[in-house]
């Protein structure tokens, strides 16, 4: 396997405040290889977007990287001065955010924005930059790109705008693309098109993609590996198929069970029983309670108050990721020395 393009080790993001310091990302480690799509999944407040923002150096103050290191192609980028980081963004790391309208400048045509970005990062003239911009727009699936070159962002639909944002992120052939909820604002039919576009681009350009989303379905379609985050930590990381079909962390298992799936009637089951359809179906798996707020992360394993399999050690000690099959799981159930206490 090729060496990782991005390596994040023990990343810690803190928000100092008047009432003490909040730790939003805590001991997060992962790597992404060229051409690989790593999914980061979790519920709101799990720290997935902040992890992305820390990597591209766009944490909103007072948020700051308080520990760990981030390496891009072997080079540390977590403590570069603003100006150097600005040159890396766009050139070596591209970013795609949820809302395409806020990622584009409403006062410039999309052509101007693309050409400006290309000229800033690549050593080519305006004419060649223009050719490249048109080619990019064609590649992301904008019909008749020459004609749309002079159009402004408001003249595009949501799906088309997101394609423009993707073209903008890819302008300078970055080695890493961070896509934060790129399909969340889109309708399902547009979502499917954008997902397959991202997948194709990662493959064709050997770009590493960090795909941040709350939608397990998007992950299943796109990612090679997935990290499941909970309360600022990675609960489980492994190949997508293993995490989805054989989740090991109780949180991942609960999360998978809580997703409604399209139920097809069993063939030959005859006419359904009377009564509302939902009553005939087993209820969804429920994880009681909700994710803790940052100022109230419980000691030990952050998931223990909601965990059906917790035992004494989970309350006391914070689990580090442990290898379990192909996955890495932060759960004491998979420790060799589980202690004398059996899970209840």
């Amino acid at each position, binding site marked *: 396997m090729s060496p990782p393009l991005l390596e994040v080790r023990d990343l810690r993001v803190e928000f100092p405040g008047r009432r003490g310091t909040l730790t939003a990302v805590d001991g997060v480690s992962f790597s992404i290889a060229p051409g690989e799509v790593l999914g980061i999944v979790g*519920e*709101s407040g799990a720290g997935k977007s902040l992890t992305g923002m820390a990597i591209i150096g766009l944490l909103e103050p007072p948020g700051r990287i308080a520990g760990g290191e981030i390496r891009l192609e072997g080079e540390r980028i977590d403590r570069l001065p603003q100006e150097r980081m600005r040159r890396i963004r766009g050139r070596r790391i591209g970013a795609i955010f949820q809302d395409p309208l806020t990622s584009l400048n409403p006062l410039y045509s999309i052509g101007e924005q693309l050409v400006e970005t290309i000229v800033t990062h690549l050593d080519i003239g305006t004419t060649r930059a223009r050719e490249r911009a048109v080619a990019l727009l064609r590649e992301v699936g904008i019909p008749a790109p020459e004609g749309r070159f002079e159009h402004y962002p408001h003249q595009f*639909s949501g*799906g*088309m705008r997101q394609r423009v944002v993707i073209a903008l992120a890819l302008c300078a052939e970055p080695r890493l693309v961070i896509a934060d909820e790129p399909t969340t604002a889109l*309708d*399902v*039919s*547009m*979502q*499917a*098109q954008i*997902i*397959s576009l991202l997948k194709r681009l990662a493959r064709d350009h050997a770009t590493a993609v960090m795909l941040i989303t*709350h*939608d*397990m*379905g*998007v992950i*299943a*379609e796109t990612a090679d590996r997935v990290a499941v985050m909970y309360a600022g930590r990675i609960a489980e990381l492994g190949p*997508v*198929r293993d995490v*989805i*079909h054989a989740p090991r962390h109780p949180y991942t298992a*609960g*999360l998978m*069970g*809580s*997703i*409604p*799936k*399209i*139920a*097809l*009637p069993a063939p030959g089951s005859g006419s*359904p029983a009377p*009564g*509302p*359809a*939902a*009553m005939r*179906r087993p*209820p*969804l*798996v*429920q*994880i*009681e309670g*909700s*994710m803790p707020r940052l100022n109230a992360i419980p000691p030990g394993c952050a998931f223990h108050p909601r965990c059906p399999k917790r035992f004494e050690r989970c309350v006391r000690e914070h689990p580090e990721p442990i290898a379990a099959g192909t996955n890495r799981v932060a759960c004491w159930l998979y420790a060799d020395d589980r202690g004398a206490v059996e899970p209840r």
Partner: protein
Amino acid sequence: MSGALRPLVRLHAVSRDFDVSRPWLNRVLEGVPRQLLRAVDGVSFELRRGETLALVGESGCGKSTVARLIVGLHAPSAGRIEFDGVDLASPGASSLRRRMQMIFQDPYASLNPRWRVRDIVAEPIRVLGVARSKSEIDERVAEQLRQVRLAPEDGEKYPHEFSGGQRQRISIARALSGKPEFLVCDEPTSALDVSVQAQILNLMVALQGGLGLTYLFISHNLAVVSHVADRVGVMYLGRLVELAEAGELFARPRHPYTRMLLDAIPDLAMSGRRRTPVSGEVPNPLDPPAGCAFHPRCPHAGARCRSERPLPFADGPSLVACHAVQEGRI
């Protein structure tokens, strides 16, 4: 028809136009005509007592407008809505309104931040006169909160002290406190995380069973719909293109748009099933295509689809509005 068999809600060729014209002065100076947007276009369906009917479709398809028409937040521009056999536009129909309630998508916007939860939940009780004395009202509020698995003491708090899922429970408690028979739920779980969504869906299913409620469930999420709905209506550009039993719709989708929607759902099981790639996007509703609204994106479109609007017809147990299905081309 006897009362028990009569549908609870019936929409008869309901349409709704919105005036999206430029201001009067611009129209006069620039010589542009008035412009109407037809958000709902000739929609007819029935809701049976105790069932969940889901309306699905992409943004702008008119599903939320249908919800708002039924509860009376908009008046239809054409057509008729009946509740329990009575036209909702007729005089005296306002007493029927108390038998229906609505749950909204955004639990952050739908609760008054300055009111305590007990006052939010008590409002329908007071307004609809379900209970009059203070002790009776307090008792009912406590009961409603317990019913949605909150503690009666939570009534003393304000909405900001609750998470999104808990707020949606408060919305449900408020909706149920007026003792309605019929709940219109407009994307009730779309703003929630999946684990919280599961809690709310399970709660809604349990409440329906316990109280014999009828639900109109508006959602863009087909997996959620497949979990809760008995029947599903698919809308596209203001029109109902398919209406079928949920199992039938997911197993044998008929309309090309329904097939496209089902194909677009991410394959969570990673079964590697073959899917037709989706193409195109929803056209501008101000300028809908002639004939069948879906024809510019439809792989089966013919000359008739481009000129003549298809009307719903019964294909087996389903209602479909598609020339290609009717002509046996697909």
